């Protein structure tokens, strides 16, 4: 029998059809995909003895407790710590993947001068020259650390200025600091004792403050309850995640928060719902209703609801003084469940403005958020672990990455209680990186070293004999015989929490109702929070999932 070309084609067709009924295509597909994952140039995770250590996330100032899984002394996994009194096991998606950040392609690994490779020697010479020629300004993003103390000392010795770059949450406390003369870093929100929270667009359930602090409170006292223990009233133009989950939502015209605050204040005063009798806003209720697109009755109902279940605290999304003035009117400043003052140990620091005049050199610590760009003619020396893009500094200096340096952590911004923790350096830093404090120590060896400053802080805590240390178990500070023992415990991942906030320890007085100042809008909040770079896993979790909504989606 002669085999024709037609027979070959038909036989091949039969074979192709038959092949689909075998494991060949499916198995080959799987094996080839695995083969591509194991190409020799693809980096492999380290293998070695595994262990777990407790520490704290240093990506932002929240200082969440973390359990770091190490393989061959290299961090390979991160989880939350349920015994942490603030976060109670919660972590943000970035924190879960923070250990990957040290290998990010945008990691700064060498000194850059105007984008060109330089050296530490040249950077130091340029810095010393600039300091000798004119004033120095040092910007710090996380005041209250041992490194902050060192930066401040250096600035003081050189007749320079030390300024603090406030995060978004702390900026909401600025009006109270202005009115009372108390430093912003000493103030906080006592959400734990509040029964009603009136939020003017603050994204309380969408990443506001330390992860877990408010979300846990809300889930325990509010979620799914018709008459919850904790009432969250969200005043917001868009239907954000917080607005959707809130007990009540008040939809107003975007940008009319100050008008609504004035309207609510007017009702509170006119109906004698608060003890104070002034200051009366100039804006009438009808005007407030007109600006906010609400009815006067709706504003009246809101004002009555707010005072129905006290203590009540008002939270703004920014430093809007008109919104902040409501807290003064409601008597919740320096009161339980309101704006409180922590037992302070940090002297008030000047807040930094982007415009920096009369400086010859500006040193920007790695803790300053990347989006803060100093507007100055001075020579800018910026420390950073990752390059967030742009051209914001003359000198870009490689700083230690995640868990690559020993650092201490004061309480999170807006926290009601004083706290202190120590984050160990669990990862080995690349050879060419230095923190700002290490850099300054090379210039002035008389400055105190970080280890000594941390021990000094532990001695201060021990002297007060107040508060407790939360580690494997909760221990009163009085149980520690020496500062060294306390420091050892803190280095093992424990956290010290001080006494409850001091009530009535400061006063805010308003002679007249504040007029609104230009502030950033709600849509900017989440975008401003985004860090300079994202680790691969966080990109997946954080960007592609709907864990954090983008402003465009929120307004859709």
């Amino acid at each position, binding site marked *: 029998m002669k085999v024709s070309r037609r027979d070959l084609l038909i036989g091949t067709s*039969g074979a192709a059809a038959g092949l689909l009924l*075998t494991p060949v295509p499916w198995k080959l597909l799987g094996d080839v995909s695995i083969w591509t994952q194991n190409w020799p140039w693809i980096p492999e*995770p380290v293998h070695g003895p595994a262990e777990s250590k407790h520490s704290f996330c240093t990506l932002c100032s929240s200082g969440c407790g973390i359990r770091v899984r190490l393989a061959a002394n290299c961090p390979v996994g991160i989880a939350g710590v349920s015994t942490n009194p603030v976060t109670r096991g919660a972590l943000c998606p970035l924190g879960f993947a923070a250990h990957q950040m040290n290998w990010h392609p945008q990691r700064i690994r060498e000194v850059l001068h105007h984008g060109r490779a330089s050296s530490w020697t040249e950077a130091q010479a340029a810095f010393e020259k600039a300091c000798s020629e004119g004033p120095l300004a040092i910007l710090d993003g996380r005041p209250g650390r041992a490194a902050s103390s060192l930066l401040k000392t250096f600035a003081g010795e050189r007749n320079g200025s030390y300024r603090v770059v406030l995060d978004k949450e702390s900026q909401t406390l600025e009006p109270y600091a202005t009115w009372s003369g108390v430093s912003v870093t000493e103030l906080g929100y006592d959400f734990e004792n509040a029964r009603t929270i009136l939020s003017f667009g603050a994204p309380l359930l969408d990443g506001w403050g330390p992860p877990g602090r408010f979300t846990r409170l809300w889930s325990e006292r509010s979620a799914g309850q018709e008459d919850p223990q904790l009432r969250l009233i969200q005043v917001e133009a868009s239907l954000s995640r917080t607005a959707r989950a809130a007990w009540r939502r008040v939809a107003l015209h975007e940008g009319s928060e100050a008008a609504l605050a004035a309207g609510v204040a007017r009702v509170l005063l006119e109906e004698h719902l608060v003890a104070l009798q002034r200051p009366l806003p100039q804006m009438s209720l009808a005007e407030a209703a007109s600006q906010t697109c609400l009815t006067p009755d709706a504003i009246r109902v809101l004002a009555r609801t707010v005072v129905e279940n006290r203590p009540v605290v008002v939270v703004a999304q920014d430093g809007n003084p008109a919104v902040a003035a409501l807290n003064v009117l409601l008597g919740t400043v320096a009161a339980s469940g309101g704006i409180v003052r922590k037992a302070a140990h940090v002297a008030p620091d000047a807040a930094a403005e982007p415009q920096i005049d009369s400086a010859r050199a500006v040193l920007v610590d790695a803790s300053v958020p990347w989006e803060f760009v100093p507007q100055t003619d001075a020579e800018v020396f910026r420390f950073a672990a990752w390059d967030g893009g742009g051209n914001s500094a003359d000198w870009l200096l490689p700083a230690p990455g995640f868990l690559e340096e020993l650092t201490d952590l004061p309480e999170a911004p807006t926290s009601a209680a004083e706290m202190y923790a120590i984050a160990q350096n669990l990862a080995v830093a690349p050879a060419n990186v230095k923190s700002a404090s290490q850099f300054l120590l090379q210039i002035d060896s008389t400055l105190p070293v970080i280890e000594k400053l941390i021990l000094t802080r532990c001695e201060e805590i021990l002297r007060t004999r107040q508060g407790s240390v939360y580690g494997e178990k909760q221990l009163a500070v009085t149980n520690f015989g020496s500062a060294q023992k306390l420091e050892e415990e803190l280095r093992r991942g424990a956290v010290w929490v001080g006494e409850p906030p001091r009530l009535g320890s400061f006063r805010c007085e308003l002679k007249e109702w504040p007029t609104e100042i230009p502030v950033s809008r709600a849509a900017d909040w989440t975008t401003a929070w985004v860090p300079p770079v994202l680790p691969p896993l966080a990109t997946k979790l954080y960007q592609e999932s709907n864990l954090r909504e983008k402003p465009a989606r929120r307004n859709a």
Partner: protein
Amino acid sequence: MRRTLVVFAIGFTFAVMTGWVAFPSALYVRKVQPLEFHHKTHSEKSGFTECESCHAFGNAGEFTGIPSIETCAGCHADKLGTSKSEAILVDDYIKRGREIPWLVYGRQPKNVWFSHATHTRLAGLACSDCHGNFGESDQPRIYEQNRISGYSRDIWGHSISRLRRAPHDGMKMSDCEDCHRRHHVEVGCLGCHE
């Protein structure tokens, strides 16, 4: 028309037979372990009745895996028999302090983190739930390595179709997921992948 059907059927049958019979044999390369090892002899004659007697956990709960040559040397410092394997063990490995390059049947890829302690101590699983009755084997099985992926055949399982398998046959991610689902234990991606 009839000729067309016959030719189609020949091609079809050839492909099906090749796919189900020849392909599995061709896909895996068969390797022999460097030494004969009798689990049964060790459990019956040497009194190591528990897997953990040799495959121990460290102080921190970490799994030490296959025992090091030092453990073997505890009994085999001198030859205990006249077999060829015994001579190789003592002369080539123990006396020279070299580790035996065992081919590990259940070796997982490096992007997976697995805790034996969690599964045996916390969840109470028996070793045989995943590894089968390995401890009763007379001699080590032939190690089959996938020519493309490089993985042991034990990961995919011995049934190429994965349809009718023994409970312990297969150590793929889907097998882990199935077991977790059966035991109502939820674990996210980060539970195993770093």
